[in-house]
């Protein structure tokens, strides 16, 4: 195994879950997220000499995957409808659901930008500045989006009290 492959394999092991969670949280479709993140990592490998010098290569992978999602969505939006692969949305307030399902549903209800900020800040553990660079917005905007998103999630999760006790 050459040095490049070894470095990339270490990077993949370290960040594959975080990248996948971030993209899954944003696009809401597990299989699609898997395809997008795999392609994002493959592109990172193809440009590894450049990507490995990126201050946050995991953010590069997620940005690439989300850009691919935009292309995919533009191409297929007429054919695609939300289906059972998407995490659940539209649950009635007060419905009895387990904690994970409630979180997925609450995330789904967020505006895309807020979901992206939650994904990068919480699931990929990026700092404010890197999140801002990745999304092309100001650090202050990241903070504002995260604040609003958490407030909305808190309100939304509070409507599922019975099974949220473990939180």
């Amino acid at each position: 195994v050459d040095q490049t492959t070894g470095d990339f394999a270490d990077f993949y092991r370290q960040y594959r879950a975080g990248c996948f969670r971030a993209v899954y949280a944003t696009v809401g479709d597990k299989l699609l997220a898997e395809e997008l993140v795999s392609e994002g990592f493959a592109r990172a490998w193809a440009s590894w000499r450049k990507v490995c010098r990126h201050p946050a290569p995991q953010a590069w992978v997620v940005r690439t995957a989300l850009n691919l999602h935009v292309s995919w969505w533009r191409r297929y939006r007429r054919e695609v409808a939300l289906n059972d692969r998407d995490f659940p949305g539209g649950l009635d307030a007060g419905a009895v659901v387990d904690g994970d399902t409630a979180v997925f549903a609450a995330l789904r209800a967020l505006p895309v930008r807020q979901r992206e900020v939650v994904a990068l800040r919480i699931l990929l553990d990026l700092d404010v500045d890197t999140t801002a660079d990745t999304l092309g917005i100001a650090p202050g905007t990241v903070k504002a989006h995260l604040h609003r998103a958490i407030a909305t999630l808190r309100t939304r999760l509070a409507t599922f009290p019975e099974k949220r006790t473990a939180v």
Partner: protein
Amino acid sequence: MTQHTDEVPAAVERAFSAVDLATPVDQIIGRGRRLRGRRRKLASGLVAVAAAAALAVPLSHAAAGGGQPTSAQASTAPAPGVQVDLAAWSVHTNANGTVSITVRQMHDPADLRKTLAKAGIPAVVAVDHLGTPSTCVSHGGQVPKDLPKGIIAAVNRGTAGAPGVTIRPAAIPKGDTVYFIVAMNGTRPSYVLIMIFKGTPPTCSS
């Protein structure tokens, strides 16, 4: 990873804690290699287009200098196959009958001429040094013919940018000779220039 003390980020983290990407790293790297290969292919294609553009100027010059109409009696004899790889140059007969030539150095034009003849290309090989007075392009008063259509199947670039060209021997009219000029930039071949002469072209000197 940051441990979130706020219950909402902690709940989000926990909800996704079992989510992991199952794609094996080998599969990712395999796909990455294909992407990289495709990109290199595209880049070499662009170099070939650039080389073709570089070649187009001398070729159009040659065509403009020739006022004679083409007697397009193409040879129909199958070209003999040649597969030669030297440090200086390569000549390969392809499955479709075309012959690919790549020039990396040029010390012995006569040897390349013999190999081209074996590949079905009657040629005179000459070396032209860029930046010095040359008789290659003025071709000693002899007028080159219009280049027959299809004689150049492709313009290639080998490793390290070595110039090359793919010639279709079947498109060379009978009795004509290819004037194969290797233009040198210092000690390295920069591009190749193809002309067609009736009979034997003049020897090039520079």
